[in-house]
């Protein structure tokens, strides 16, 4: 199948899988059962649709398959059978209950890998195989992770609901963390085999859905803007040979200006609610880069200021590293280097720390030490595109 056909199929599945899960959840009242049935229906769709074409009403098609499977499966132990047999599509929900689904999948009592796998399967309609391939993990490992998570949902009494107001902030941050991780996983991946799933696309879709369901949450809008701003520049991130192109060297005419403008509008709308947060701030930083017509026109003063605010909200050595990189362009490489020296003990195993040090060392006229730092960075990264760029530096300079 061609890439566009494959993406369209994935998109149709994604638009309906969560809705189907919600409908089945309402009948069975059992998360694990609903989840199994959705997965069955998705697998059947992926088997039939590529040759038979996507049906006119894909949601009804998926529902019919799920219902048939359920009736087969429940023949013996059958408390849902009667209810299911009566069920007709479309099952009109009073409201979009996918929010409940998302909050259940991302419950803090589940491990982060389990939250991710469940969200992808139930909300986005990915198959176990697709998840395994995206994360370079064996399929049996993902299957086990999902089985265990579903058992915990049932046995530990993890509820299927949107958290109450006083829990919402902390629970929402779990959901946002899952989506952000998915995005990073997809965004950093460099392989784009026609069958492999673009997780960045799933993350974009999930953030969009969440924003639609929770339009007044500024951090949701912030995350969506952040993802869209990054993706708007995706075309320029890889050269014709597939090699990673770093920000200063990117051809900015390849950036999607319309997408950038829309994301900034989204971010501005969120800012009006006067509840700043880490995703809004990160999006604002990316917006500074996106708005600069040339690398030389980047507003570094503003970027450092935004990093200061981000550090105030969520102190982290990685954020300090990024701020130090920006400092190079405001108060100079020497000061940035001093900041980096301070971070050595916290970030000694982080490849970007050494890659950033290498750049600063080169700027400070210390090529030998720069080479050593690049070498260290190379040892610490598994990402082929990043490895390639470090190899290049080591060979050329």
């Amino acid at each position, binding site marked *: 199948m061609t890439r566009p056909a494959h993406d369209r199929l994935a998109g149709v599945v994604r638009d309906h899988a969560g809705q189907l899960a919600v409908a089945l959840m309402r009948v069975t009242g059992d998360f694990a059962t609903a989840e199994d049935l959705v997965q069955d229906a998705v697998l059947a769709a992926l088997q039939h649709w590529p040759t038979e074409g996507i049906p006119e009403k894909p949601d009804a098609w998926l529902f019919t398959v799920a219902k048939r499977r359920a009736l087969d499966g429940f023949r013996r132990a059958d408390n849902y059978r009667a209810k299911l047999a009566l069920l007709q599509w479309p099952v009109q929900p009073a409201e979009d209950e996918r929010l409940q689904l998302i909050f259940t999948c991302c*419950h803090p*009592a589940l491990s982060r890998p389990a939250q991710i796998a469940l969200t992808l399967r139930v909300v986005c309609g990915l198959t176990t195989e697709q998840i395994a391939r995206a994360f370079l993990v064996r399929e049996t490992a993902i299957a086990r992770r999902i089985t265990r998570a579903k058992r915990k949902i049932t046995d*530990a*009494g*993890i*509820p299927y609901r949107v*958290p109450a107001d006083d*829990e919402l902030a902390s629970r929402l941050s779990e959901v946002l963390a899952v989506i952000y991780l998915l995005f990073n996983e997809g965004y950093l991946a460099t392989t784009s085999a026609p069958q492999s799933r673009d997780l960045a696309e799933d993350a974009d879709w999930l953030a969009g859905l969440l924003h639609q369901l929770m339009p007044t949450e500024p951090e949701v809008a912030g995350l969506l803007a952040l993802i869209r701003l990054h993706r708007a520049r995706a075309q320029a991130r890889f050269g014709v040979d597939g090699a990673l192109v770093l920000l200063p060297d990117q051809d900015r005419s390849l950036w999607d200006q319309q997408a950038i403008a829309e994301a900034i509008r989204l971010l501005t709308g969120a800012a009006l609610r006067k509840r700043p947060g880490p995703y809004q701030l990160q999006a604002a930083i990316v917006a500074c880069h996106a708005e600069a017509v040339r690398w030389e026109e980047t507003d570094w003063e503003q970027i450092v200021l935004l990093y200061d605010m981000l550090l105030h909200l969520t102190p982290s050595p990685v954020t300090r590293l990024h701020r130090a990189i920006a400092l190079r362009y405001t108060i100079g490489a020497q000061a940035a280097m001093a900041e980096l020296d301070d971070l050595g003990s916290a970030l000694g195993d982080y490849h970007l720390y050494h890659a950033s040090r290498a750049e600063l060392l080169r700027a400070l006229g210390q090529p030998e030490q720069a080479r050593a730092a690049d070498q260290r960075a190379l040892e610490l990264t598994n990402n082929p595109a990043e490895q390639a760029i470090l190899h290049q530096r080591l060979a050329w300079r």
Partner: protein
Amino acid sequence: MKYVLLFVETEEFERDLEAMGPAERDRAYQRVMEWMTTNADKIRGGNKLQGSETATTVRLGDGEPVITDGPFVEGKEVVSGYTEIEVADLDEALRMVKTWPGCPLIEIRPLEP
């Protein structure tokens, strides 16, 4: 659903408790009693345990049972009490536990139905 809350004490918590004056310690116990009263409708029973130095562990194997002094895991964190509760779901148990004024660690375990 029924859960057991396992209250776990840490060395630091124990030290802090020992360092308290009698009045301060009374206030700490008072806060725990208040929590028990507030949540009385959900509590189905429970007990405070004697210190881990009073524990005896029996390991059954092929031969004679091996009896040893102390808890089954020697660690810095020891179970110091338990409470059985009955609530709607895990979120309600979590909500309840968040206001617990005693030891700093709690394990929530659902009971088998």
